[in-house]
C-alpha cells in the first residue's frame, strides 16, 4: 500500500498562502463590498443587494465596456504587430547590438506610465511638440495639439506595452530552431515570405497568447486614457476609479470591477480551452 506523504503537499501551502494574502483576500473583500448598499450621504452600509450589478446593464456602462474591449483589442493587436517584427530583426543582429537593444527595451520598461504619458502629452502639444515642428516645416498650416484624442491614447498604450511584448518574445525567438527557415531560403523563398509563411505560423500559438496577455493588460490601463484620451475614450478602469475614489461609491466600483474580472477570466478560460483543443487535433 502506498503511503500518503504529507510533506510534498505542504509545499503547496506556500503559493496558496501568498495567493490568499495578496490576491484572494482582497478579491473576496471586493466581492463582498460589491453587494453592500451605497449610502449617498455617507459611505456604504453592510447589506446584500444586487442593485450595484443591475446598474451595469444600463446603456452607459454597457457602452463604456464595449469601448474598453475594442480599444484594448486594437492596442494589443497594434503592439504585437509592431513589437514582434522588431524583436525578430533584433535577434538577427550580432550579439553586441542585441545587448544594446535589450538594454534599451528594459530601460523603456522602467519608465512609469505617468512619465511616458506626460512625454507624449508634450510631444503632441501644439506649443512644443510634433505639430509645432510640422508647422515650422510648413507641412501643417494651422498646427493643433494632437492630444487628447483616441490616436494619442493608442500611441501611449502601445509605447507602454511595446517593450513588454518584445522582451516576451526575445528568448523564444533567439533560441528558435532556424533549420526550417534556412531550408525555405535555400529553396529560394524571399526573406519577407519566409517571415510570413514560416516564422509567423510557427509562432502562432505564442502570438495568440501574447495578444490575450496584452488585451488583459490594456483593459486595466488608467493613466493613458486619462492623460491622452478624451472623455469619450475613457475606459472602464477610469470609470471604476471615478465611482470608487472620486464619488466614494465603493459598492458600484467593486461591482464593476467584479464584472470586468469575470469577463477577463472567461476570456482567458476560453482561450485556454481553444488552444487545448487545437493541440489535441
Amino acid at each position, binding site marked *: 500500500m502506498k503511503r500518503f506523504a504529507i510533506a510534498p503537499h505542504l509545499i503547496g501551502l506556500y503559493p496558496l498562502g501568498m495567493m490568499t494574502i495578496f490576491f484572494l483576500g482582497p478579491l473576496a473583500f471586493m466581492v463582498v463590498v460589491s453587494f453592500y448598499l451605497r449610502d449617498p450621504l*455617507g459611505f456604504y452600509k453592510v447589506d446584500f443587494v444586487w442593485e450595484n450589478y443591475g446598474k451595469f446593464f444600463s446603456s452607459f456602462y454597457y457602452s463604456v465596456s464595449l469601448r474598453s474591449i475594442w480599444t484594448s483589442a486594437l492596442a494589443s493587436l497594434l503592439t504585437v504587430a509592431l513589437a514582434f517584427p522588431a524583436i525578430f530583426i533584433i535577434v538577427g543582429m550580432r550579439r553586441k547590438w542585441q545587448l544594446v537593444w535589450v538594454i534599451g527595451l528594459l530601460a523603456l520598461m522602467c519608465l512609469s506610465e505617468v512619465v511616458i504619458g506626460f512625454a507624449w502629452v508634450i510631444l503632441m*502639444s501644439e506649443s512644443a511638440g510634433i505639430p509645432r515642428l510640422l508647422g515650422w516645416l510648413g507641412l501643417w498650416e494651422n498646427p493643433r495639439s494632437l492630444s487628447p484624442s483616441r490616436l494619442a491614447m493608442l500611441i501611449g498604450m502601445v509605447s507602454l506595452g511595446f517593450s513588454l511584448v518584445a522582451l516576451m518574445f526575445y528568448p523564444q525567438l533567439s533560441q528558435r530552431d532556424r533549420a526550417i527557415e534556412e531550408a525555405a531560403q535555400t529553396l529560394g523563398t524571399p526573406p519577407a515570405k519566409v517571415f510570413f509563411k514560416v516564422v509567423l505560423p510557427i509562432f502562432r500559438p505564442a502570438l495568440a497568447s501574447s495578444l490575450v496577455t496584452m488585451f488583459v493588460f490594456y483593459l486595466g490601463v488608467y493613466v493613458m486614457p486619462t492623460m491622452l484620451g478624451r472623455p469619450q475614450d475613457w475606459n472602464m478602469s477610469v*470609470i471604476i476609479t471615478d465611482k470608487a475614489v472620486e464619488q466614494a461609491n*465603493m459598492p458600484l466600483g467593486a461591482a464593476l470591477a467584479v464584472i470586468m474580472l469575470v469577463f477577463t477570466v472567461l476570456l482567458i478560460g476560453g482561450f485556454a480551452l481553444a488552444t487545448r483543443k487545437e493541440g489535441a487535433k
Partner: protein
Amino acid sequence: MTGMFRGMTAIAVTGLAFAAGAAQAEEITVSSWGGFFEETLAAEIYPGFTETTGIEVRSIAQPADQAWLTQLTSAARAKKAPADLSLVSDEVLARGRTIGLWAALDPQAMPSTDFLKDGFVKADDDGTFAVAALSFWSTFVTNTDFRAEAPESWAELWTGDWDGKLGMASAVNSGLLEITAVTHFGGYEIMETREGLEQVIAKIAELKPNVRLWYRDEGQFQQGLESGEFNGGTYFHDVAMLSIYDGNPIASTFPKEGGVLSDAYWIVPRDSKHGEAAQKFIDYMSQPVVQAEMARVLGVAPVAKRELMDLTEEEFSAVSNDLEPIRVQTEIHLREGDWLADKYLEMISR
C-alpha cells in the same frame, strides 16, 4: 509622495529627540491638500502657531477629497486618526458628518471664531463639528495672448470665439452646472428637479465643440493655458494669480454673474487624541491677522470678517471680490449624486 517622505522624516526626527531624552512638546498632525498648498502652510503659517502655543505641528499632505474621505473612514473603523486636523471641502464635511467621522468641538475654547463671517462655525443638533479655514474662487481664466480683453459674462463661454480651445474641469461638482444655471436659467431653482438638471446638462453639452480638454488634472490645464494650448476655461483663482505673478500671459476674471466660491473647513477626526491642541490650532487659524496672512501668501480668500483684517484694497481684490458668488449646490449634489454624476459623465463622454 512628498508628504509621505516628509512624514517619515518627522517621525525619524521625533524618535531621535525622544532617544536623547529631550523634553517632548505636544505635537499635532495637520493634513491639507498636497503640493504648494501644504508646503506654504507648513513654511509660512504653522510656525507662528508653534511660537504662540509651543505646540509642534507636523504637516502632511492629503489626497483629493473623496479619496481622503475613504482613508478617513477606514481609519475610523480601526479607531485611528490619520491626522489631528484636516482641511476638507463642504461635500466631504457633509458626508463625514453623516457617518460620524468628526469629533465634537467646543466653541468656547475657540474664541477667535467670533471673528469669522456668519455661518462659518458649523453646528447641528449634536453640536459644533467644523470651522471654516479658507475660501477659494474659481474664475473665468483666459490666455491674454489670444484675447486681450477680459470676458464680462460666463455666457461668453458659449458665445465667444475660443477657436475650439477651452479647458473645463470634468468633475460634476466643479461649479459648471451652477454657472450654467445662474447664467442661462436665472438661478439654482432649475436644479431642484431632475428634468431641470437635464436641461442644464443639455446646455453644457452645447459647449462641447469648443472644449478641447475636460481636465481631471489641474496641472495639465494650467500648463496648456500658459503655453497657449488653451485659450480659456474655468480655473482656481489663487493658482491662476500665482501663475500671473510668474509672468505668464493669463487673466483671471470674475464675470458679472460672479465667480464660483467654495469653502474649506477644519475638522478634527473623531479618534484624534489631541482635541484640545487641535482647538487651539483652529482658534489661531481663525484670527484675522492669520487670515490676512494666508490671503497674502496663499492667495486664498479669507473667511474672517473683512473689516477686522488689515488687508489693503489692492490685497483684498487680488484674492477676493464683493460680488455675489456662485455657490456649488452641495445639497443637490449629495441628493442626486450618483444619478447626476452618471448623466454628466454621459454628456461629456458622448
